[in-house]
Every structure is written in C-alpha cells, then in structure tokens.
C-alpha cells in the first residue's frame, strides 16, 4: 500500500533536515577546506540538547518530580505522551528555546574543538572530529540522565496540539523547510562575499593566506562555529521528527552519507549540496518503502546501500571529481566593476 502524499511529506522532511547537514558540510569542507569527518557529533549534540531540554522541562513545568519519575522511565514516557498536546504555548516556547540552545551548544563546541586542530593538516582535523563523534556515543551510553543506551522517548512534537495527523506533518515540514531556507540564504550570502573568497583562499593554500595577513585559525574557528551551530538545529529538528533519540542514531555512517551527498552534488556548490541531498534521501526513502516487499534475502539490503555510499564516493572522485555541479565563482559586485571597466 503506497501513500504518495505520505511518501512525499516524509521524503521532503528528511531531505530538509539532511540538506542542512549537506549545506553546512559543504561550507566547512567544500568552501573552507576544514575536513569535517565528525558532522554527526554536532548533529547528535543538537538532538540530545533538544531532547533533554524538552522532556525534562515538560515534566517539570507540569509539576512532575523528575527525580522520582525521570523522562526515560516508563511512567515518565507515559506522562510525556499524555501531556504533549495540552499546552500549545509550552510546545512552541520549548521549540524556540531548543533551537537557540542547540545552536549555541553545537556552535560553541565546534568553536572550542577548532583550537587543537586549526594549525595541523587535514588528516588530523578529520580524524579528531571523527573521534569526538565516537566518544560522544560512548559517553551517552553511560550517561543515565540522557537515557543511557535506550535514549529518550516520547519527545513532544512542537505541533502535538494539532488534532489532525496530516496537518501536523505538514506544519512540521514547513518548519523544516523554513529552517532550511534560512540556512541556505545565510550560507549563500557568506559564500558570495569577501569572507567566502577569503575562505576559498584558505582552502587553496592556507600558508599563503596566512602570509597575506589572514588570521587563518580564527577563520576556521568561525567556520566551525557557524557550520556546527546550524547542524545543531538540524539535530533539534531530527529529535522532534523522530520523537526519540538514542546513541545508535549518531554513528559515523551518518557523516559519510552527508559526505557522499556533497561529493556527488559537487563540493563548493550550494545547490549541488541540495541536489546530492535530494538524490540520496529520495533513494533512501524509496528503498525503505520497497524493502519490506522484497521478503527475505541472503544479503541484507542495508549492507548493499551502505556499500553504495562508499562506492559512490570513490567512483565520483575518480571519474568526476567536481561532482554534478562544479563550484561557481564568488558572486560580488566586483564583476560588475570589471564589466564597466572594460568598457570605459
């Protein structure tokens, strides 16, 4: 039984969330040359910040003693489910708070993590960030207030108070697309400005950029702050969409998926990031609709999908390294000056 509207809404919502990841990774690793193999870490930070803020405050503000009935406890979960749709103002306020907190925590973490890695080569950068993600996961598995290995469930959706399920989904999709638009416009403006030009210079030759007066460490830290901040908000959206978080959602495979997206779409190109994200999420959603129909197979389709991600990365880099949409130029008024200069 295929529900086309349901499929579209589901695909577009995931597309929206992943696109934020793809755009920010494109900004960090495509335009600025900061090889971020730890995308999932900031994603998870945003998601868990939102989850914990929302479920704890929800219970506390409704008068429940969380030391006796914590949100990961079965009673707490039931309470959350019952109370979710009672108070629209509470939901929306928590939504706004979550976004702000997710942005700040993920962003500041990104900024601080840049300190040990801004001076060293891309291998160390990539590897350190990859490790933070893994350590985060190990930490969460032992951190009871975040639900340990089971995580947190029954996170009240910001639109839980809307009676009709489809309307709720649509409203959430609008929220996601709204955040995506904001992220896209921000990145577009940053990339097509003197800052974007300087970041490309840093990517091309950071030593030369340093010798031309650019404070390369500060620039990289800024990039990680901005990129991670928006990534945190994407995590926030994920937490609300899934209504649950657990450590196994934030594995390196997520980072690699986003990398495959920007490599396929074209590193350094914003629309390329969107294109890559659209293609990937579409196939992912389509496959998850089809797989139950396939029945039992010898090889799990998950493995084939995972393999394709790696294969795609290698194949694109070998045969079409710029991806589908190559990087354009920095669009500033300078080009108008050039045109009129040539005429005059």
């Amino acid at each position: 039984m295929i529900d086309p509207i349901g499929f579209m809404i589901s695909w577009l919502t995931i597309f929206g969330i992943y696109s934020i990841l793809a755009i920010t990774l494109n900004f960090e690793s495509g335009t600025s040359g900061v090889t971020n193999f730890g995308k999932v870490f900031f994603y998870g930070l945003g998601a868990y910040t939102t989850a914990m803020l929302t479920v704890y405050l929800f219970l506390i503000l409704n008068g429940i003693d969380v030391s006796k009935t914590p949100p990961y406890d079965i009673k707490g979960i039931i309470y959350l489910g019952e109370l979710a749709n009672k108070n629209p103002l509470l939901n929306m306020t928590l939504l706004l708070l979550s976004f702000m907190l997710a942005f700040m925590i993920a962003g500041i973490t990104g900024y601080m993590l840049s300190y040990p890695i801004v001076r060293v080569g891309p291998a160390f950068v990539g590897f350190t960030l990859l490790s933070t993600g893994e350590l985060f996961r190990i930490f969460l598995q032992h951190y009871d207030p975040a639900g340990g290995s089971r995580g947190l469930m029954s996170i009240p959706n910001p639109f839980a108070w809307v009676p009709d399920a489809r309307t709720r989904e649509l409203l959430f999709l609008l929220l996601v697309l709204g955040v995506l638009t904001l992220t896209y416009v921000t990145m577009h403006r940053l990339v097509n400005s003197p800052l974007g030009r300087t970041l490309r210079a840093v990517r091309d030759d950071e030593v030369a950029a340093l010798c031309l007066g650019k404070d390369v460490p500060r620039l990289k830290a800024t990039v990680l702050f901005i990129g991670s901040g928006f990534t945190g908000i994407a995590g926030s959206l994920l937490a609300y969409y899934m209504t649950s978080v657990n450590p196994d959602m934030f594995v390196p495979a997520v980072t690699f998926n986003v990398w495959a997206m920007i490599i396929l779409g074209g590193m350094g190109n914003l629309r390329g990031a969107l294109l890559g994200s659209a293609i990937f999420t579409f196939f992912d959603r389509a496959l998850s609709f089809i797989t139950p129909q396939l029945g039992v197979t010898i090889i799990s389709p998950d493995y084939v999908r995972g393999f394709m991600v790696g294969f795609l990365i290698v194949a694109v880099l070998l045969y079409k390294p710029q991806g589908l949409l190559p990087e354009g130029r920095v669009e500033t008024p300078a080009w108008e000056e050039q045109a009129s200069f040539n005429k005059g």
Partner: protein
Amino acid sequence: MGSILEVQSVSKRFGGIIALDKVSLSVPQGAVVGLIGPNGSGKTTLFNVVTGFYVPDAGEVWFNNNGSSERIDGLNPNDVFAKGIVRTFQIPRLFKSLTVLENLLVTPLQQKGENPLKALNPKAWGEEERRLARKALSLLKRFGLLEYAHVKVSELSGAHIKLLETMRGLMTDARLFLLDEPAAGVEAGAAHELFRLVKSLQGDGYTFFIVEHRIEILMQYVEYVYVMHNGKLLAEGKPEEIISNEKVIEAYIGGGSA
C-alpha cells in the same frame, strides 16, 4: 634615509643543523637589495625568520614603519604582513581556484565583508568591494594583465603567475617586498621585465629585498648585495665589489652549487 629592515645577530638551528649563525644586515628604505649565496646557505631561512615562519633562537628583527621602529621577530606571519611586509615564494603560491581578479581582491586586510556578520548584508560591504575592484583592475591594467581578470590562475603562464604574485602586495599598504627567486623558472626576457618592474616600483617608494640565484640578472638591478654561506653572512657590498670578491667566488665554486 634610515633602514626599513634591520636583522640583528639572528641565529636559528634545526636539531643539529645551524641554519643561521648570528646574521646581521640592514635594508635601507627605498632601496633594491640582493641576497645571494649557494644552495643551503640560509637565504630562505632568513626570509622565513623575518616573515614569522620561524622564531629565531637568538637575535632580533626590527622593522621601521613610517618613522617608528618595531620589533617583529616572533610575530605570526599574518601580523608581519599587517605591518607592511610582503613576501613571494620560490614556487609561487597563488590561490588556484580563484581568478586573477579574485586573487588581488583577497589581499587587502580587514575588509568589511570578511566579518561574518557584515558579510550577511551585501549593502554593508558593497561599496568597499567596488572600490577595491576598481583599484585591482587599474593595477591589472598597469601591469598588462587586465585581459586575464576573469581567468583562473591555474591557466596562467609561468611568467604571469610570477608577476601576479609579486604585485598583489600593491593592493595593501605594503612597503617592503621580500622576493624569493623571482627569476626562477622563467625565461630571461620575462625575468628582466619583472626586474624592470621592480625598479619602476622603487621609483614609487617601495623597498625590495631579493633572493636570487641568477646572479647575472640580479646584479644589473640591485644597489647593494649581501652574500650568505653556511648560515653566516660572508660578504656585503656593491654589486661590482661582490662579483670580484674572492671569498664569494670560492664559496660558489668550492663549497656549494650555484
């Protein structure tokens, strides 16, 4: 006319190797000064110390910026640039994915549009961007590169690349140019053009300190030469004196390769 750059007894070692041994020299304001020596004599290391790549183990470097002298050894490379010192590299380091015009536009310091918050609002930096673009375009016109403004640097010829790397410092208030082997890898005609350009810029008040291997070209354009050998300052003087200096000849033929 005082000296714009003073290197005082600078030493630098790497593990067991002494790269610079109490080197002292000074570059007079507005002069074109050469630095020569066999391979491995420490010329590039000296440049690296002056421009902040390395911190000297001993000694000081002073830079005279419009009247007041400042000590610059130990500063980071970007701070050294901000003081007004530009350097080029033996193998030119331009930004390969940017066009010729963009390579010039990257150079000015503290552009409004480089601030992330201001960058979000095109109106905040648009004026400055246009002004810098006009300045860059006039520079390109002056040096005959205007037709390449929109061309990616990776497609330029070797001579043009050298030229671009040398002149991009003119987008800022840089006053001292450290050129590392500007004639390397280009044919003689282009090399001479570059040096003639240097002399004409000297007329505009800029100072040049040039490392060069092709001595036959360099000597025609410099007024003073320093010679290094094995990390030490071997000799100094006017070009005519240096060419006939026995110690210098011996260093080139005997100790190192030219």
